[in-house]
């Protein structure tokens, strides 16, 4: 009764219908983004969900390369933006500006004066060479938090190396330990080092904002996505240091938690089974009708279960049980006995499960440009200042006039002149990923003029 009451309370507290009635934690924080693809742009995306204002600077016309990235080259049916772009450009304003141009640099500096955070993901030192790097900007705005996301950081032997998500995965060792023994190392089926990298980068921005609230001081933050994956490899480094052995690929088996593996059920679902405590393992044994196993000295404590020979003895038993039990039965037993069991979720599972919808993980945006689009929603739930998605990816430069009027104190006439010179641009190229969907009326969603 007590726990049900709590969950009811929580459901009311987090009610997705009330989200827009509540304040935003990062309201008033202005972030300038000069980034492409994901590692850079996702950091401000995460901040935007909690109310930060994001001004995305893009090359006029073409914009972010990410605007082309869509699975199998398939764009949404009405010709809207690439799926990868739609999602990650949530809540952002798009400004077309060519920062190579001296006059654009002046506009940029005006924006920086008003900004709290600047984020870029260029090669190390690029903006410094352009005369608008941290050394230049800190003089204009000492409260500025400047964060540079890239592959290998700003200095050191690898500083000249370009990076991508797949390179951070391969150079950090995570690809090496993912996959099966004697088969290929695997990269994640998602742009993991980008999305997860951008997240950990955002954490540092928040810590720096917290510090700035106390001291008034901004700072420079250097973030390497490869180093971030190295930090995420849990026990790898201590293990190698102590044993002299290298960490290898162990398939779906977690060799540090036992049991923890993926099996095939009677009804041919891929089912993960995991027990993090002895209590949970006892529950699994009960479910399997094998309480003797929980008493067996080889399996009764976690450290014993983890010994390679004991793992080898235990897994075939679980494998056979799962093979002879249907997923709905396993699911029921896992609830009854409190061990971990879940089937491998595909997009359909997540799309159709009301759990994810109630929790705002599946989020439908009714966008003035693109219409109703479903995207991955908000990861953490905050009851007083919940995250939200207001709109998704917008055409290149569509907010140029609004942003430069409001944040750079330029007049409509000045902006128009800059546009005629090609310094800035509010129009997009007529090509896939750049042009807005045919269904758009050309006006909805544009703030000004």
């Amino acid at each position, binding site marked *: 009764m007590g726990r049900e009451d709590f969950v009811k309370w929580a459901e009311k*507290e987090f009610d997705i219908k009330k989200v827009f009635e509540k304040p935003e934690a990062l309201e008033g924080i202005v972030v300038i983004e000069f980034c492409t693809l994901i590692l850079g742009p996702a950091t401000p995306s995460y901040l935007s969900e909690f109310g930060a204002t994001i001004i995305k600077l893009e090359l006029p016309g073409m914009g972010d390369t990410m605007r082309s990235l869509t699975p199998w080259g398939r764009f949404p049916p009405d010709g809207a933006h690439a799926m990868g772009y739609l999602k990650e450009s949530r809540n952002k304003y798009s400004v077309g500006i060519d920062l190579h141009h001296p006059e654009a640099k002046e506009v940029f500096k005006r924006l920086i004066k008003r900004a709290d955070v600047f984020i870029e993901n260029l090669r190390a030192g690029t903006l410094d060479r352009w005369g608008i790097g941290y050394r230049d900007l800190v003089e204009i705005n000492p409260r500025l938090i400047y964060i540079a996301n890239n592959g290998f950081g700003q200095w*050191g032997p690898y500083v000249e190396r370009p990076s991508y998500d797949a390179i951070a995965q391969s150079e950090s060792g995570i690809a090496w330990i993912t996959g099966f023994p004697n088969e290929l190392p695997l990269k994640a089926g998602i742009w993991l080092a980008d999305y997860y990298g951008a997240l950990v980068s955002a954490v540092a921005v928040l810590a720096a904002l917290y510090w700035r609230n106390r001291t008034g001081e901004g700072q420079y933050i250097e973030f390497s996505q490869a180093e971030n994956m190295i930090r995420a490899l849990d026990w790898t*480094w201590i293990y190698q240091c102590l044993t002299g052995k290298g960490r290898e690929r162990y398939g779906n088996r977690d060799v540090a938690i036992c049991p923890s593996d993926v099996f095939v059920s009677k009804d041919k679902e891929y089912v993960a089974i995991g027990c993090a405590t002895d209590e949970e393992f006892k529950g699994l044994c009960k479910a399997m009708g094998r309480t003797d196993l929980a008493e067996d000295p080889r399996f009764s404590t976690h450290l014993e279960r983890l010994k390679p020979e004991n793992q080898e003895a235990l897994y075939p038993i679980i494998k056979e049980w799962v093979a002879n039990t249907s997923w709905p039965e396993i699911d029921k037993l896992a609830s009854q006995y409190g061990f971990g069991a879940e089937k491998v979720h595909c997009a359909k599972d997540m799309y159709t499960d009301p759990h994810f919808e109630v929790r705002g993980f599946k989020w439908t945006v009714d966008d003035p440009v693109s219409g109703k689009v479903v995207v991955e929603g908000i990861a953490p739930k905050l009851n007083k200042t919940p995250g939200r998605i207001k709109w998704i990816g917008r055409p290149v430069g569509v907010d140029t006039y609004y942003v430069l009027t409001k944040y750079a104190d330029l007049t409509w006439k000045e902006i128009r002149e800059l546009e005629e010179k090609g310094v800035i641009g509010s129009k997009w190229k007529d090509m896939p990923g750049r042009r807005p969907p045919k269904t758009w009326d050309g006006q909805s969603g544009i703030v000004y003029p």
Partner: protein
Amino acid sequence: MIEKKMDNTVPWDEWIRALDDPKYTPGKPEALSDLWVIDVSYANMAGAYASSILSEFGANVIKIEPPTGDPARTFTPFGITHKGEGLGYLNEGRNKYHITLNLNTKEGKEIFKKLAKKVDVIIESFKPGVMDELGIGYRQLSVENPRLVYCAIYTYGQYGPRALCNKADVDIINQVMSGVTYVTGEYVKDPNNPKESEVPTKEGNWMGWYAGGAWAAFAILTALIWRDKSGEGQFIDVSPAEALGRCINYALTNYQFYEDNVERVGNLDAGVFCYTYFRCKDGYCFLSGFADPNWSLLCEIIERPDLRDKYPTVFERLNFENQKAAYKEIEKWTIDKTYNEIFEIVMEANRKAKESGKGGVVVPGKVVSPQEVMHTENWWIRGTFVKFEDPIYGELIIANQPWKMTKTPPRVKWLCRPVGRDNMYIYQKLLGFGAEDIKNLKEKGVI
């Protein structure tokens, strides 16, 4: 250092290194040094990682364990322990005070309430409502401490149809529920003869928990920034499954428009080609060439202009059957070269393409084993790895944080502490318990 600050004649890398190299960390302030955090997470590395992040930024973190210790201390490869600790927790005990408290005793709960009044943040990972039922959940604690930021971590979250399913939060469960496992792994090459390895595949590390921990730290800091403004704490719900799921590219959008799943494609990518790992003479290498000029340069490097003609635009290149076919052709070039040879050839070609104004960049990368990673000079120069000498656990190699910061760099002060080692210090400092009180509580099984 300071006088060099605005000197634009110093090359950028030297200039910034003088400000953010971790070797200059000692003596600099810490971003979160005024924060007090309780981490009462249990058997959950998402909780441990969240509090590690805060502690690396300088927060005072009190890890509360039951007197028998957190089962997370036994999460360790093949059951190997070091001075009694599992290696997974040993890595995430950093900078934390470790105290014990039995929350199932009346006195234990009272002590917890007293501690909760004095801290800024609580992190827990029990099933939803467990703390509430004990009378020490957010609803109760926030009455006396309205500034409290309370973060609950659980696979199925604190609400929603599955919140009360009672199933355990384990990394692998988070991974498979995130949608990431489904799209990771080798595709079945021959449907009549599928291999055991051609299945959905989890990330090798505790990726579900690390993503959960990072999102928890993100949410906590966001809430603290709001608290600076409003004076109010709040309640945070983090599901590590959703935390990792937030990273699934465009899976939900694709399902909305096309009612199909993006299936697993091994080391290929539904959205980019060429962008994959190839076998080479001494291992595996990464090569890219996605946009037209880059693809064109790649075809030139491997002396296969026919491939450029066959797959002239991204639309041809993204077709899965074409990807598989082109992959085989490119691998013919990589297979008899060492990684270093490939790297040199590609970088030289990039240089020439730039000089000639023709453009195009092909990016090479190496698939490196963790053993080789740990022996790569670059990471030692950058302070990514350090040999850390801990008074209890001795000298160990650990990975440092991925952020270098000019003003408030993160740092590791100690690696871990045994169960209850800081009982005396923390209980005395925060609650005024003396040696005798501690002894009594111990005898009663409270700590």
